[in-house]
């Protein structure tokens, strides 16, 4: 199976680029914005101003490329690692900060952002995404859903059941597998016997495409085609984005226990952000000055986002028993009363 690529490792176009200049610039900006968030989030995490955080460094193009192919009325169904996708999709930056602070204010997804939570239980988002997508189709809308999962996640039964449902019902769904080489400490070749996740599509009678996940142009182009196909009623597409988890699994992980740095180093040379910048520079669309201006803008946005997050009200103890049901029931009411009054129910 071929891997779809548009850029070489330095960002030089290998063939005609099916994106406009505006799109290329918008794409780079989204990449750079995601990278900025990730770098600064890790700093916040080390300062104790964020909880456990799953970095996505190296996977920006895979997430951003897919998300750029979505409309506002589409659905985004991420796993825990898709902060870059969420940011690109329209989740306010301050909310993302709050989310990774495990703050209730961050867990409330704003109206108008059609995103489900960052899911922890692996693969469970896949059948749900199939249901979301199919519901839109039943309602006669043209919306699609994009669901993200990792190479490790493909081993779960829900990945299989979700794909089968999506294919049987021709649900307008993009199943995006970021094959980043690792599932915590387990390398992809111990996770599955196939070399390419995209081969799994053949078991469901749907197209499977492997794309260079560090090539934004390639990911965006492939995802855009899959979304158009889905909107046209032709059903789901499995997209395997070949990439690499350059960073630790989460801020609590120590990759030294299971892998050598060489591998990560090699992948850093194919950094998706640098590659895209290389492309823009090659096309004469970018220079150091623009980069500097962008960086300043992104830092200002980030600082403002953190400020906003810092102003979120302190979570209240009794919030933990709110929103269990649409109407509060007696058991929750009793707990609420107890927590509200600080004890002695």
């Amino acid at each position, binding site marked *: 199976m071929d891997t779809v690529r548009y850029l070489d490792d330095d960002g030089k176009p290998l063939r005609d680029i099916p994106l406009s200049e505006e799109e290329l610039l918008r794409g780079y900006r989204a990449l750079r914005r995601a990278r900025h968030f990730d770098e600064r989030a890790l700093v916040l995490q080390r300062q104790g101003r964020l909880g456990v955080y799953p970095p996505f460094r190296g996977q920006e193009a895979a997430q951003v490329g897919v998300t750029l192919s979505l409309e506002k009325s589409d*659905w985004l169904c991420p796993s825990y690692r898709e902060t870059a996708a969420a940011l690109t999709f329209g989740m306010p930056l301050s909310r993302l900060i709050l989310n990774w602070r495990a703050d*209730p204010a961050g*867990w*409330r*997804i*704003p*109206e108008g952002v059609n995103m*489900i*939570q960052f899911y*922890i*239980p692996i693969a*469970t988002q*896949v*059948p*749900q*995404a*199939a*249901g*979301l*997508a*199919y*519901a*839109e189709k*039943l*309602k006669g809308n043209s919306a699609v*859903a994009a669901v993200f999962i990792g190479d490790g996640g493909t081993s779960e*039964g*829900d990945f299989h*059941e*979700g794909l*089968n*449902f999506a294919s*049987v019902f021709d649900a307008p769904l993009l199943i995006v597998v970021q094959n980043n080489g690792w599932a915590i400490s387990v390398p992809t070749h111990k996770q599955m016997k196939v070399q390419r996740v995209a081969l799994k599509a053949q078991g469901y009678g749907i197209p499977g495409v492997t794309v260079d996940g560090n090539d934004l142009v390639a990911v965006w182009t492939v995802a855009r085609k899959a979304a158009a196909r889905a909107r046209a009623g032709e059903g789901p597409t499995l997209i395997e984005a070949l990439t690499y988890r350059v960073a630790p699994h989460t801020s609590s992980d120590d990759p030294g226990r299971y892998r050598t740095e060489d591998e990560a180093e090699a992948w850093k040379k194919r950094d998706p952000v640098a590659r895209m910048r290389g492309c823009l520079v090659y096309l004469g669309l970018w220079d150091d000055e623009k980069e500097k201006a962008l960086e300043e803008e992104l830092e200002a946005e980030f600082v403002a986002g953190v400020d906003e997050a810092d102003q979120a009200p302190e979570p209240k103890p009794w919030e933990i028993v*709110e*929103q*269990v*049901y*649409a109407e509060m*029931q*007696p*058991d929750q009411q009793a707990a609420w009363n107890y927590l509200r009054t600080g004890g002695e129910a």
Partner: protein
Amino acid sequence: MIAERGTRVINLVQAVNEALDLALERDPRVVLFGEDVGKMGGVFRASDGLQPKYGEKRVFDTPLAESGIVGFAIGMAMAGLRPVAEIQFAGFLYPALDQILSHLGRMRHRTRGRFTIPLVIRAPYGGGVKTPEQHADSPEAILCHVPGVKVIIPSSPERAKGLLLSAIEDPDPVFFLEAIKLYRGVKAEVPEGYYTLPIGKARVVREGGAATLIAYGGMVEVCQKAAEVAAREGVELEVIDVETLVPLDTPTLVESVAKTGRAVVVYEAMRTGGFGAEIVARLAEEATDYLEAPVVRVAGWDAPYPPFSAVENFYRPDTKRVLEAVRKVLTH
């Protein structure tokens, strides 16, 4: 309101079928699906005739995958539909327990109210009709330990119809378990047309002062029969149909025990960790001062429901065992 309507004598499956029909008719957001639900109309015929009437978009067969069914249904509910999913037998809810425990009842809580899952999951449960292995399980205790879901188990055709319609209207996820033994075992008058019954209320189905029998689903019938036998011996038993297990109507239970001073809790699931334990615990917490004898549980034994048809009826509580328990609480 209900009293004014005409009624017809139908069984519990027919009552469920009527409710589904009315819900599909009334609310275009309602969709019905599951294994063999469409073309065949369900292995118990609960959706008989509904696919021809409402079309394949609203009533359809799914692949054979329960986690897929529940996950798919959760997604559809988030997108604004009102899915009613059938799981062929309650013992086949097990593959879906990850979707159920990880998502179904957490969605509203974790999204702070942005998303809710107005999903009804129906499944036949319980024993007594010599089904194959795993077809007679009673896993309600597990469902009742899932935060954020409601659990309803009706005991008659009339209650089933009205409660199912309430469940479909409810904004929260609802499990709706139907006792297989009652499907065709009991016929009763059922009001015509659309009506709902309150979720979260237990019902006194027979009044009496000697002791309280607390049961739900297929065990209500057993308790009523036991009460009839006892009445012939001059012992008047009160029988309570819990009906909604979660949220549990503790006050109605406590009130009855305050009157009778004695209670027997009856359920057909495995005794240890069954939902009857929660009922007993609530009585122990809130009704101890009224209790004149220790509460007694009559339940399935601590063993799998026997796949051995000839002796399966020794597993499920019957009137004999209920009456022995009554004697125990009366003679303490």
